[in-house]
Structure formats: C-alpha cells, structure tokens
C-alpha cells in the first residue's frame, strides 16, 4: 500500500517529447558543440526554464536575505525507474530534504548530469519532466547546471548531482547541543518503503509487490513544525541510506546521547514488512526517501505529532526517546518486551541463505 502523504502528484506527465534527430545520448552531447546545444536548447533549458536559468550564464546571480544553508548530494540509483518515482524525484527531493534537516526551506538548486552514452532520449526526457514536476511541487528553482557524457560502460545510464541553498527558518535552533534526555523521537511516516520498492525491481529478485517509493519533499512539514514549536524542535535528520537504525546511531554517537526505539510504535506498512520477512531484511536498516526523524522536547511531542498528522502525514508517531543512560548507543525495546542493541551495519544488508 502506498503511504498516504503529500507525495501524491495531482497530474501525470503530459508534455510530449520534441522531435530530436537522435534517439540516444552520444558522446557528442557532452562535447560543448552543436549536439550539446541541441540537447540543452530543446531539452534541458526548455523543460526547466525560469528567469534565472534563462540568462544561460556560467552561474546564477541572485539576492538572499537571512541565514543560508547549503547542501549537496549525488544520485546513482539502479534501476533508474521504480514504483513511485525515478532518479529525478530523488535528485530534487533528496537535496530539498537535506536542507530541510538544517531547518532551511530550499530556494535554488544546481543540477548536474553525468549521462552514459546510449541512454535512450525517451528516458532522459521522462527524467527531465519528473525533475521539473518535483521542483515545482517543492517550490524550488533550478538555476544552474552542467551536462557531461561518459563512454558506454562507464556510467549507469545517468548520474545526477544537485546542490541547493535555502533560507534557515528564523525560529530554528537545531543542533547536537539542543538534545536533552527525555526528548521524544518522532517519525513522520512509515519506514522502509523506498528500499523495498527498489529491491523488488532489481534483476534477480522477481517478486511482485504494490509497494511504492516514499520519495517526497518534507520541507513543508519541517516548516510547520518550526513555525509552531521553534526551538523545541531539537534535531532533524532524514532516514535515507542505512534507514532509521543508521541515522539514530549517528544521532546517538555524534550527539553523545542514548536513544531507545520502541518497536511497537515504529510504523511499517504490512506489505513492506512482509517483503522484509521474505528477503531476510530488517526494516530498520532499509532506505527511505521521505522519512525524517525529529527529536522534539518531551512536553511538545504529542502536539508536534498531531500537527504532522494534520499536515498530510497521518502515520506520524512518537517512536522512541532520548536518554542519558546509554550514551552513544541505540537500543530497541522489542515488541515482546526484550531489549537489544541496534548497531550500524558494516555494509549493505545481504540476502540470506535460508
């Protein structure tokens, strides 16, 4: 079942692809010559157009007021297209969310493509359209960028880098120093959907599932939290690679606090839980693209949770607590009342024998 959140797009891709005199990306598209110009003019610039990009300068020039956050991320997902989105969604939402975790609302993004020779134009076009939609949905502008092409076999279809800047919320006072024993750990949405959606479509893993990626921008949710609770929001981190287990470990380690997670409270959609059982994976370590952890002052936690629920995150919940008892360590209170350590994984989770 798809998680019900603000990821639902109200419309479908409809912009037809213009007629290019090539069906696939070739090395010439990265040469800076005529082929590059054709790709940029009819493709990239036309789809992404806005006043700043339209100047077509080496960089974008603009004014900003207030404290600024700056972040960058690279996207190398395989497969490029998966249930619930494609690499274009991730490239926009990922950087928007990284900025949101700094308490900042993304304003401007840069966008760099590394394309592999042979990438079908239909795929590139669809990814471009998705980028435009995701940017509009998140309310950000792509103002500068770059396109390079590598030889066939030296890329994985397409790699994307986005960097972004955003204005930090005036009431934000996030940071390690703000963490307090007793703070509550809030999750905005059910975990592990993205990783399972990707895995179900990887070659060699033929299983059918309706699970879709949870990729979504979360900055509006963060803005609402900071508007309402200001400095009572102590820390934010998105639970992407390595899942909830890894990010809570980072918070416990760098923040020098203990974290206890409550297994019973952590939402996992039934299909996702079923797929994890089948594949021998622990959902705590499976990647998310629209889930964040908010560490919130204890006396505000219920209200913060209710606010998220009213803002399109119906399964937002309190999933644990910060303490001073086991600093640097994350423990899970299991559904049956036992308690165990939740460690960082040494590498990727691997499929099991039996």
């Amino acid at each position: 079942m798809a998680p019900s959140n603000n990821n639902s797009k109200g419309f479908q891709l409809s912009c037809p692809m213009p007629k290019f005199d090539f069906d696939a990306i070739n090395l010439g598209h990265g040469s800076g010559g005529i082929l590059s110009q054709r790709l940029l003019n009819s493709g990239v610039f036309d789809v992404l157009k806005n006043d700043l990009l339209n100047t077509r300068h080496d960089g974008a020039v603009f004014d900003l007021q207030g404290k600024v956050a700056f972040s960058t991320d690279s996207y190398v997902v395989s497969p490029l297209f998966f249930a619930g989105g494609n690499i274009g969604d991730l490239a926009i939402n990922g950087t928007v969310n990284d900025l949101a975790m700094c308490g900042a609302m993304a304003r401007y993004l840069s966008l760099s493509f590394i394309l592999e020779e042979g990438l079908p134009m239909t795929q590139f076009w669809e990814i471009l359209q998705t980028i435009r939609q995701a940017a509009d949905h998140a309310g950000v502008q792509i103002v500068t960028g770059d396109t390079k092409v590598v030889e066939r076999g030296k890329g994985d279809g397409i790699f994307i880098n986005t960097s972004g800047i955003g204005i930090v919320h005036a009431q934000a006072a996030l940071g390690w120093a703000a963490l307090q024993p007793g703070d509550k750990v809030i999750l905005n949405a059910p975990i592990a959907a993205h990783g399972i959606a990707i895995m179900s479509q990887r070659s060699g893993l033929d299983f059918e599932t309706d699970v879709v990626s949870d990729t979504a921008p979360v900055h509006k949710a963060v803005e609402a939290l900071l508007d309402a609770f200001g400095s009572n929001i102590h820390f934010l981190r998105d639970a992407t690679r390595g899942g909830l287990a890894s990010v809570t470990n980072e918070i416990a380690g760098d923040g020098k606090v203990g974290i206890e997670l409550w297994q019973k409270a952590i939402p996992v959609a039934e299909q996702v839980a079923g797929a994890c059982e089948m594949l021998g994976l622990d959902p705590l370590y499976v990647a998310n693209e629209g889930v964040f952890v908010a560490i919130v002052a204890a006396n505000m936690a219920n209200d913060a949770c209710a606010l998220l629920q009213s803002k399109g995150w119906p399964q937002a919940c309190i999933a644990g607590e910060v303490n001073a008892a086991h600093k640097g360590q994350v423990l899970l209170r299991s559904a049956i009342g036992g308690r165990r350590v939740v460690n960082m994984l040494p590498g990727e989770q691997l499929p099991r024998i039996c």
Partner: protein
Amino acid sequence: MKYLDEYRSPEAVETLLKEIHKTVTRKWTIMEVCGGQTHSLVKNGLIGMLPKLVTMVHGPGCPVCVTPQSLIDKAVWLAEEKRVILCSFGDMIRVPGTRKSLLEAKSGGADVRILYSPLEAVNIAQQNPDKEVVFFAVGFETTAPANALSVIHAQRAGISNYSILTSHVLVPPAIEAIVNDEGNVVQGFLAAGHVCTIMGMDAYKPLVQKYKLPIVVTGFEPVDLLHGILMLLQQLEKGEYKLENQYSRVVHPDGNAAARKTIDTVFEVTDREWRGIAVIPNSGYELKNTYSAYDANCKFDIPEAAAEADNGCMAGEILRGKMKPFECPHFGKTCNPLNPLGAPMVSSEGACAAYYHFHQATEAVPA
C-alpha cells in the same frame, strides 16, 4: 501479518516465560542448533528473560560458518576466472578465504552475483551461453532441494554451461558429533524446524534413544522458541528423553516427500569437513556421478587450496557450544564484521554476528 504476529505476541511470550520459570528447578544447558534460532533469541532479547538456571548455547546450524576456507578459496578462484559468473547467496560473500573473500574478488573485477534462488543462476546461464555459470551451493538440508532442482532444470533445458560448487551439510550427524565430543555440556537440543520441514523427524529418533537425549523440533519466532525451550525443560526436569515437535504447523513427521525425492535424485551422502570442528562421517551431500557434468569440481581444474592458517578464530569452540561469542578474546576487538577472523562474525546466522549486532546485557524490561 497472519501466521507471524501470533507467534510474536507479548501475551503468549509472558505466559510461556511464567511457565518456564515455574518449571525450572536445576541448572540446564540447551543448544539451539540453527543460526536462525540463535539470531531470533538474541534479536528479541529472549536470553535475558530466561531463568538464570538455563544456559543457551549456540549450535553449528549456520551453513556459512561451517564451510571450510578451502571451499571459499575454490569459489574465489572460480570467480576470478574470466569466463565464469559466480553466483552465491548473500551470506557467503563477506566470509574470508585464506586469500580473500568473494566480496574482495568482486571489487577486483570478478563477476560475482548475489541471488536468492539457484534457479535464477540457471536463467543467467541460459542468457550467457558464452560464460560458465557456477552456483555456490551452500546450506543444510533446507536449501538442498532447490539446489538439486537447479541441476535437474539445467539438464532438462539442455543447459551445459551451468554447474554447482557443493558444500551441503546435514544436521543429525553434527548433533551426534557434539554429543560425542569430549567435555560436551549440552543436555538437550532444539532441532532446526526448517531442516525437518524437508527431512522429517525420523533421523533424530536413534539419537534420542542412543544418547537418552531430549530433542524438540522448534520454530523460529519468539513464541516458538520459548515453547520449544519449555517442552525441553519439562522433559529434562522429569528425566525423560523424547523426540517432540513444537513446530507442527510447518513440520510433518515425514517431511516433504517431493523435496526429499529431488535431493535423492541428484545428491548422495558423503563425509564433509566442518570448519573448526572436524571431518564428520556421512555429514554432507555431493553430486552423484551421473550429474558430474554439473559438478564444478569436475568441470574445472581448481587448484587445491592452501592449508587453513590459524588466525586465532575460536569458531570451532563456539559452534560446539563450548564458548560464548563474547568469551572469545578476539570478539569485538581484533574480530569484527569489517575485519572478521571467521565466518560466525559475518554470516547473518553466525552466533558472533548475532551478539555483535544485537546483544547488550540483555535484561528484560517491562513491555
């Protein structure tokens, strides 16, 4: 999830724990054979909830852990052959051989693929007629039918570029070896449920009689494990020795006839080296001569591996229940999942990995 949630119910767990505490009057040492059971015990914090009089020791039922290094070396050698696509279950690829692991071979350019099913390897062979596809067929009786089936499928489809590197091991001979071992401390066994799903329970009857040994075939969820432990403790406290089936919702006493027939078609019983333990007579499967065309050992001229270097790994002691992972001097220090001395630290069913990942002082806390 139906058929899972019922066996993770806090209420049922509490009832069983109360009953276990009521039953126990003396010290007992119990071994759960299967690594999946070990992980469930540690992951759910069950060990800390048991009476102090009950000691759980962890058995050899982790196929990855008992696979000798010489065989991993063979797999690495095959993977590094340019014409070979080496397919494996995920657990195997981090396990160190004498030179390197499959993961290191993969980083060095070898074509190593992680699969869930050996049948997928047959598909890969069909799609890559110019390559030799080898499946690293590791596992207990549970995975043997699927591995056997892959060979049968390849033969039926006339696929000649598929073979398996077999390292199948069998549970009952391992239990017997542990019982016969000098200084054995184990008084009763939780047998591995999924192995019995395939093989049935007959093979355990002689062990129960010969060694006056209580054995309970047990599942993997918290309620299964506590129920199995309770059944075993009831026998031990009464001085009884019986073969019982806790996992009757899955295990038929006769096992799965079709799966056994598939195994018998392709494999025959052989002596097998168990890493860190010994060569145990009649404790594994190898391909029958009639299927030698699908035996990677026959198909390739694989050099004999170097003798296993003694790096201090105490896997043998741990797999026989003589040492707890955290009692090993290397545990968490010179041996960890990034730099393992032996397989139990990296296999998803390895006892050392279970303790490294999940175990703290596993005290019970109110639900």
